[in-house]
């Protein structure tokens, strides 16, 4: 049904256009005038003023409606700083946008063709050019300095000793998270130990003592107002850790671990009451195209206050407790296995 309607509308529009076209080309030929500044020029001139003006009014009217769905204020320390930089920059560029576009369209309208208008032969003016080289340069300098300051604070801090480490691993098409357990140290891993069939999705090296208390939860829990260090990696293709509410983003790269440190400032409960939305959840998404399920790599993040977080931690069981068969298995045993396999191949060949 819809197709038919669309089709009909299309044909109708096409018909109208064709008709209009034939009529107007005939008229043009009859008139046989190709003068500058005719009616068309005046109409286009008027539109040069009208269209941007209407556009501006519509945009101003629509903005508050659209802005309702912007993300809430950042829930992290660096996020608040990037947010203020963002809104300052946006104000500056909106002004630039409005001033330059206003000039462009106003001049287009005002200086539309009029017979006998005296055009100013104005080919050069060093002072003017100096001004509009210098002004953007100064604005850019300020924004660069401000940006560098915010960036350095967000990205170039040494993690404190008591930082909460969380390992986030991307794979097609889900996130997996590992916590270091009581010792605060993540065990080693190697991609050659990864084995979905046996259940070692992370490729954890269980010969490393640090891995013995590592646990793999089903959602991320982090304590409020404490720095969290995300150790990020991917095991198949590129992924990207994106936590929109915390203004956190960092690619997950196979073979090259990355990291991102941030400090959450609002618990999930706080956000729920602040937004009046009892179903609110912090989310983790993927922002580097990774294949079919790229759009569905959702993972939940819960920001707890200190007691809740402690309670949650206490409930978590080390991975080895659930899968004791992995105990002590790691790179060495893998190597032994490989050596044995190679030997076997060799002997077969020899025979």
């Amino acid at each position, binding site marked *: 049904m819809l197709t038919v309607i669309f089709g009909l509308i*299309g044909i109708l529009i096409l018909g109208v256009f064709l008709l209009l076209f034939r009529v*107007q080309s005939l008229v043009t030929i009859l008139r046989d005038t190709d003068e500058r*500044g005719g009616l*068309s*020029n005046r*109409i*286009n001139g008027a539109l*040069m003023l009208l*269209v*941007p003006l209407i*556009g501006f009014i519509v945009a101003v009217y629509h903005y508050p409606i659209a802005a*309702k*769905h912007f993300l809430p204020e950042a829930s992290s320390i660096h996020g608040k*700083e990037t947010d203020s*930089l*963002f809104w300052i*920059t*946006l104000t500056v*560029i909106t002004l*630039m*946008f409005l001033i330059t576009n206003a000039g*462009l*369209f106003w001049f*287009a309208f005002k*200086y*539309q*063709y009029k017979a006998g208008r005296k*055009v100013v*032969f*104005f080919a*050069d*003016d060093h002072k003017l*050019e100096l001004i*509009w*080289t210098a002004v953007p340069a100064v604005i*850019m300098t300020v*924004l660069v300095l401000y*940006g560098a300051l915010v960036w*350095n604070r967000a*990205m*170039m801090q040494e993690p404190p000793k008591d930082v909460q480490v969380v390992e986030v691993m991307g794979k097609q098409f889900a996130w997996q998270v590992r916590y270091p357990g009581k010792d605060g140290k993540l065990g080693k891993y190697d*991609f050659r130990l990864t084995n979905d069939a046996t259940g070692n999705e992370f*490729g954890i090296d269980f010969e490393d003592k640090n891995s013995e208390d590592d646990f793999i939860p089903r959602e991320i829990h982090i304590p409020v107002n404490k720095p969290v260090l995300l150790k*990020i990696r991917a095991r*198949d293709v*590129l992924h990207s850790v*994106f936590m*929109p*509410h915390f*203004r956190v*983003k960092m690619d997950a790269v*196979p*073979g*090259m671990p*990355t990291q991102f440190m941030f400090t959450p400032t609002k618990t999930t409960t706080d956000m729920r009451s602040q937004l009046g939305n009892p179903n609110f959840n912090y989310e983790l998404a993927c922002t580097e195209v*990774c*294949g*079919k399920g*790229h*759009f569905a790599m959702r993972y939940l993040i819960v920001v707890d206050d200190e007691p809740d977080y402690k309670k949650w931690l206490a409930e978590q069981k080390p991975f080895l407790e659930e899968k004791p068969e992995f105990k002590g298995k790691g790179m060495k045993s893998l190597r032994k296995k490989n050596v044995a396999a190679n030997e076997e191949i060799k002997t077969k060949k020899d025979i």
Partner: protein
Amino acid sequence: MELHNHGQSAVAEAHTHDHHHDEHEHHEDGFIRKYIFSEDHKTIAKQFLILGLMWAFMGGAMSVIFRLQLGFPDFNLEWLRPILGTWINETGKLEQEKYLALVTMHGTIMVFFVLTAGLSGTFSNFLIPLQVGARDMASGFMNMLSFWFFFLASVVMFTSLFLETGPASGGWVIYPPLSALPEAVPGSGAGMTYWLISMALFIVSSLLGGINYITTVINMRTKGLSFARLPLTIWAFFLTAIIGLLSFPVLFAAALLLIFDRSMGTSFFLSDIYIGGKALHHQGGSAILFQHLFWFLGHPEVYIVLLPALGITSEIIATNARKPIFGYRAMVGSMIGIGVLSFIVWAHHMFVTGMNPFLGTIFMLLTLIIAVPSAVKAFNYITTLWKGNIIFTPAMLFSIGLVSLFISGGVTGIVLGNNALDIQLHDTYFVVAHFHLVMGSASFFGMMAGVYHWFPKMFGRMMDDKLGYVHFWLTFIGVYLVFFPMHYIGIAGFPRRYYSFSTFDFGKSYADLNMFISAAAIITFSAQALFAFNFVYSIFRGRLAPLNPWDSNTLEWTTPRVPGHGNWPGAIPTVHRWPYDYSKPDADKDGFTDFIPQHIPFSQTPNSNFEHENDLIAKQEGKKNSGDNEHKHH
């Protein structure tokens, strides 16, 4: 016009007559040599244009299909099955993998085939010889090869659409490991192989063309046409060709290494990968290395598509404002500045890839410097309009539209170029909005402006003005309606290349805005039918074009209505002045209206000459007598 050709030396005239004579003897071109394997730059330009436009419609149609998915996720696409076949699944929805394929192909086609080949290929080919006063490109044969390599690249890319596993699907940036592993996405199998072969051919085409453009501009300018008198179009094409020549080989290297990784087991870009239940043997490669190589072309590529559009705009705005372009030297200077800077900003695409954060700061600094020459250009366009006498031809409308889009898309570059802000906005719809305005739409507008402006010279007939006006306003309004609201979606954190936003709580808003954008995109795309009709109709039925329909100063308008091979039947005109003598004071006393073409000597315009121009008369007269290439030395 022939009246004005007397600035020519007897020697030169004799020579060109000979040349012309030769042509009549050797160029009894058959149909194939004239229209298919032609070495005439004008025919080659038209071939680039027509193939580019065909790709543009295909790329546009692809965007309509994935916009349907994004804006109307519940809409049944069963009716597309005759075209898309198994890309539509049993429930009448677009396959998720094929959504990615469409996005990838849309990007590749638009960036390379439409805006590089279709824009730069068309107008560099068409205008360089005509505006520098040459009979053809330096090497007509290489020029012909350039088109046919593009054609081959097109055939390979087009064929890849019909592969069972689908075309490349890892995004137009083809980041490995996704693009290297068929296990990761089916499009990375044969589809990616085709993509790489096609791009390799395309790079060859691009280099063959670029070398020709550069050589022609440097060596084959007519007498009197110093660099300081080059139309800004030629400056733009010249710089574009240099940028392309320096950056495309790097993409070629990246593609080659990726081919090695894919089929010969090397590990340039791959390491530590477990996929499909298996740990791969690759170790020690760096996925980030590929991104560095890719963006070393990828960023200059932005200017490869944009500079020609800006050059075209400069020419059209000056002509139709009946006023010299403001700040000619600043325009050239800023183009050179943009060209140089374009090579040292690439890593702003990689702020959050895990690259050293200190590098991020350096690249932010360099990136934001580009805003300065860009701003100078925008201000100069606006000042050119000031106190002009503007004629709104369709080309002029598209040029003014370009300036607006260039500003609108450019200012958001200041946001994204700031690494602290890029943390949040990277790979969201804010980026999509930004580059579609500043690079996609602006360059597309430049291409449309060029087509409307030079159509009379290409085909000897006029396109219909009124249809052009409607086409412009629908497109202009449409483009803003599509891409302006996209910024909001980006601020709300929506990531790009998402098949659907319903998985996430934060992605549940804006269903209506996405629907609106899709509707606007469909209308904008449909409006291009007006152009297609106008274009095809006017080639055969358009009004015959006058010799100089826009009262323009540049040399191409001194050729016959439909110039033959060799461009000028008689001698090549000599250039005596810059191309922007529009509305020169007192020109009427010399018998001119509001324009004095480039080939008019100053001796003919004693009343309107400026003082330093009067000084040049003696020199020009002197040269006439000596009749050699002295003009190149001053």
